[in-house]
């Protein structure tokens, strides 16, 4: 290349950099106003960045927890024992799970029993606790020292000799302990044996059921898209002034590319400040989150960290988004600068391309819904479609607002002022409500989906007979395994009845029966589970079921289930044949479990004739009868170690909240692995149900954060309007317009776009909800009308808030030098 060519490129480059610098200069140039605007933009973008960083930390938070959980399992569960004959080696450590509940909080524990002098130590421990000793987590230590701990102590009698270190804990608030024991047997069911060579078996995490996955993914998208929209909106703060300024540059000869570069320079200042602020917010908020425990969740500060590439993405994407929006916003300035300078009403927005994302989103969701593949395999199309649909809202909104204000003809003066202003700058007006419109759309969609799931669940549970089992016969249910041959159900019920606050104590024992089979290829003898048996005396059985005749020694059998269902779901549940020999299975993890193998295998022969167990009619309560029901006389050969205990009891009205803890203490005295649950307190229920509840809580929390952001966006809107209207207000005030008129005009000017936004959001949100319901293949489409009304109320409230925020500025504009400002 010639020297001249080089010089030319150099000059072009310098011009480019010069444009950019000019943009920066314009952003930080003005008198006192831009600092206010800049810091608003920075705070707005910063909050968005912080939320995005936090959201991108969630997978890591979960992973860090899982990893530590895994690590401590790997140290403990080296290999799962499946009976002594399956492995030839001698284990180095035996361990069994323990745990209890105290005042609604779960405490998990592990019994450890070394088999060699230097056994492996679980993560977070320095050495194994000796027999009768405990190592506890810091949170448990605090709990044990707190007042009222004497109600917990009987269940955790060990002497505390150490504290579990961070790497042995999943979260800072975790309640956990390790205790040393001597009576574990490798043969005990549930006892894990650790072998010298580590063959750590990682269990793959359970995949979420599709409905829950949809809810979670949908929720996350619904909460994060408004954040991005909000960030984009923040960059367009005070855009009218910026357009006018850049149009002036355009008139003296800046070409389109230059205007874009200058606009980029301007936008970038806010974006860079915003990203910096975002990191500050994130780091500060992280520190705060480390000390918070929300809904029983706590996290280590060091776990709240986004993946480096996520962090990089957020850090870079935000400036890119802001610059792109700023450039897109300059389109009109570039095409008709004269119109911008003279404040001519812009040309009509064209509808077609604005509809494209929404149409694509609808088609995408229809496709995912129609596709035979599972949603979890179509993650990208599913989430992409939702994003497109949501992004479509702020695109269609300006058009809708324009349409509405173009129609209006004003009669009163405030209407006239508001409508005329909206006609001139319907874009700004639409933008100010776009974040809220996206949130509304998303949440209405989510509400529809959740309401449908709930309705589905309700309808299923009212249809199925098992729903009746939800009505407990007793207030409290106690379960456990008999701790030794000297303990019995009768003693336990007596001890429980002796407590001051209890009444109506009754109990049953249950047994699990299996059949012995020889398993290829190693010819191992294994017991395979067949059925459950409940041992109930005739008096109680009559209460539980509609039985007219019951003699001691009789055996009842559940009516055979629908054979189809039995084969599909529970192939082991073939009905027990008359005269069949079954062997009792130990449920014990502890010393009792070993008995199963050392003692003569306890066999039990079914009678030649069964009585039919009638269908359940009333509430079955605490005791659910299934499989076999044995009267005590028919169960005499069944040894103590095979018996589990279920006791139900009620509290007197004067019972203190701690009564349940006393019950637990008594249960712990007689039973191994005991637990007591009081209905109507902490959530019981299936795993899926708790995950569902968790996701709901998570979404609720996210919604709160997003709404807080929207609060900021309202403030930003108010600020923008103050900026834009100062002169107009001053002029109107100068010619003697009454303040009330101006106030009304301001209110209408806010209310009209909000109304349009709410209507649009309701329509699109309901459509979105219906489409997602279709994707999840649910039938009982249900709308959450109260929820929707709540959202609409929030929107209405926000109009009032914005107007209220604008009023002081209005008052100021009415007696300051608003007229003089350029």
């Amino acid at each position, binding site marked *: 290349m010639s020297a001249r060519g080089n010089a030319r490129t150099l000059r072009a480059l310098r011009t480019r950099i010069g444009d950019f610098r000019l943009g920066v200069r314009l952003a930080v140039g003005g008198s006192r106003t831009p600092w206010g605007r800049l810091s608003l933009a920075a705070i707005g973008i910063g909050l968005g960045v912080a939320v995005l960083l936090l959201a991108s930390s969630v997978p890591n938070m979960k992973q860090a927890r899982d990893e530590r959980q895994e690590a401590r399992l790997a140290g403990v569960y080296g290999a799962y024992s499946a009976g002594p004959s399956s492995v030839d080696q001698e284990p180095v450590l035996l361990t069994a799970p323990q745990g209890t509940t105290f005042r609604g909080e779960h405490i998990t524990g592990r019994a450890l029993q070394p088999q060699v002098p230097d056994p492996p130590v679980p993560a977070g421990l320095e050495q194994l606790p000796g027999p009768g000793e405990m190592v506890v987590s810091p949170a448990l230590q605090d709990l044990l020292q707190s007042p009222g701990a004497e109600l917990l102590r009987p269940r955790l009698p060990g002497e505390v000799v150490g504290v579990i270190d961070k790497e042995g804990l999943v979260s800072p608030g975790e309640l956990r302990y390790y205790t040393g024991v001597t009576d574990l047997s490798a043969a005990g069911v549930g006892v894990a044996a650790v072998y010298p060579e580590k063959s750590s078996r990682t269990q793959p995490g359970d995949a979420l059921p599709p409905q829950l996955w949809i809810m979670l993914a949908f929720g996350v998208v619904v909460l994060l898209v408004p954040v991005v929209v909000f960030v984009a909106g923040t960059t367009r703060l005070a855009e009218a002034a910026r357009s006018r300024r850049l149009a002036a540059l355009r008139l*003296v*000869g800046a070409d389109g590319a230059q205007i874009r570069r200058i606009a980029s320079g301007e936008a970038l200042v806010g974006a860079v400040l915003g990203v910096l602020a975002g990191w500050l917010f994130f780091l500060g908020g992280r520190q705060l989150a480390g000390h918070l425990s929300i809904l029983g969740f706590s996290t280590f500060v060091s776990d709240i960290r986004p993946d480096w590439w996520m962090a990089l993405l957020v850090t870079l994407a935000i400036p890119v988004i802001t610059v792109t929006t700023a450039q897109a916003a300059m389109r009109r300035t570039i095409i008709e600068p004269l119109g911008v300078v003279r404040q001519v009403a812009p040309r009509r927005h064209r509808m077609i391309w604005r509809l494209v994302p929404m149409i694509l989103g609808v088609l995408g969701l229809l496709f995912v819904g129609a596709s035979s593949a599972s949603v979890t395999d179509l993650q990208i199309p599913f989430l992409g479609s939702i994003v497109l649909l949501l992004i479509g809202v702020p695109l269609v909104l300006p058009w809708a607002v324009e349409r509405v204000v173009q129609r209006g003809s004003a009669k009163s003066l405030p209407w006239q002022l508001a409508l005329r202003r909206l006609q001139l700058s319907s874009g700004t007006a639409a933008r100010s409500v776009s974040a809220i419109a996206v949130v509304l759309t998303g949440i209405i969609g989510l509400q529809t989906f959740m309401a449908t799931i709930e309705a589905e669940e309700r309808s299923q549970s009212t249809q199925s007979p098992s729903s009746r089992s939800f009505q407990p016969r007793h207030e409290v249910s106690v379960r456990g395994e008999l701790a030794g041959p000297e303990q019995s159900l009768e003693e336990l019920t007596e001890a429980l009845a002796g407590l001051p606050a209890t009444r109506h104590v009754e109990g049953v024992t249950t047994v699990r029966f299996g059949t012995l089979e020889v398993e290829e290829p190693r010819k191992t003898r294994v017991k395979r589970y067949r059925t459950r048996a409940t041992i109930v005396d005739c008096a109680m059985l009559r209460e539980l079921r509609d039985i007219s005749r019951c003699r001691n020694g009789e055996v009842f059998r559940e009516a055979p289930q629908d054979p189809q269902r039995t084969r599909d779901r529970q192939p082991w549940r073939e009905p027990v044949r008359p005269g069949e020999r079954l062997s009792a299975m130990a449920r014990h993890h502890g010393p009792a479990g070993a008995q199963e193998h050392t003692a003569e295998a306890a066999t039990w022969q079914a009678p030649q004739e069964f009585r039919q167990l009638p269908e359940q009619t009333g509430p079955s309560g605490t005791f659910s009868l299934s499989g076999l029901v044995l009267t005590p006389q028919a169960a005499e050969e069944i040894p103590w170690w095979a018996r589990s205990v279920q006791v139900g009891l009620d509290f007197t009205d004067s019972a203190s909240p701690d009564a349940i803890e006393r019950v637990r203490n008594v249960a712990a005295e007689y039973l191994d692995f005991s637990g007591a649950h009081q209905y109507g307190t902490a959530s019981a229920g299936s795993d899926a149900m708790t995950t569902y509840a968790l996701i709901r809580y998570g979404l609720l929390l996210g919604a709160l954060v997003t709404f807080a952001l929207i609060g900021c966006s309202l403030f930003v809107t108010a600020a923008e309007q103050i900026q834009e209207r100062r002169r107009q207000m001053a002029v109107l005030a100068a010619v003697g317009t009454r303040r009330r008129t101006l106030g009304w005009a301001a209110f209408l000017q806010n209310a009209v776009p909000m109304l349009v936004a709410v209507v649009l959001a309701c329509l699109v949100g309901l459509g979105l909800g219906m489409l997602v319901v279709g994707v999840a293949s649910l039938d009982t489409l249900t709308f959450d009308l109260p929820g929707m009304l709540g959202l609409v109320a929030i929107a209405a409230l926000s109009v009032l808030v914005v107007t209220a925020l604008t009023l002081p500025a209005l008052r100021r504009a009415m007696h300051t030098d608003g007229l003089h400002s350029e």
Partner: protein
Amino acid sequence: MTLDASPDHREDAEPVLAGSDLHLSFGPTPALRGASLSVGAGETVAVTGSSGSGKSTLLHCLAGILMPESGQVRYGDHDITALPDKQRSALRRTDFGFVFQFGQLVPELTVDENVALPLRLAGVGHKEARRRAAHWMERLEVTGIADHRPGEISGGQGQRTAVARALVADPVVVFADEPTGALDSLAGEQVMTLLSDVAEESTTAVVLVTHEPRVAAYADREVVIRDGSTQREQEPVR
């Protein structure tokens, strides 16, 4: 980009800029209905006419800011109306200078930065741009308010700043829309004297829109526009 269009002789030579038979309407409102105007190097042409007659519109068409619906604007070898936007912008930056009727100073920039703006847009270095801006600010007597922002100066000072900005890049054509609108007689006279001096010194063509005959008298020629069409085109003087 600079188009090669600076003929040296002012009389009988080719005009620098010539718009002919320009038509433009804003929706139903016709603003220009066959307006023509040409200006030679070093010549000052006054465009006069009553309010709303289309003076500003004509000026904007000549400068390539508005695109007429029909008609031509010749500048050197080019028809401005046929140039792509990028080249029209470049022309405005390098060859034209502007004093607009409304909203021309950038409120965020100080007076000296506003004056240096065309140079900066054209890629002139910071120091050089400042130096050249300082020269023109001195000639227009706005040096004292160099650090002020447009919101803090008087209307007349703003207008003088705008004139300084129009002249700073040594333009071939200066378009001035009511450059003395906010000035008292003496200040207006100073600005006009300066403009005509510059036109004379550097053979700059000036298109001057005004409604004041006294200001129009500084021009070499007057074109009256009435209802969007020019009344008296190309009439030689003397």
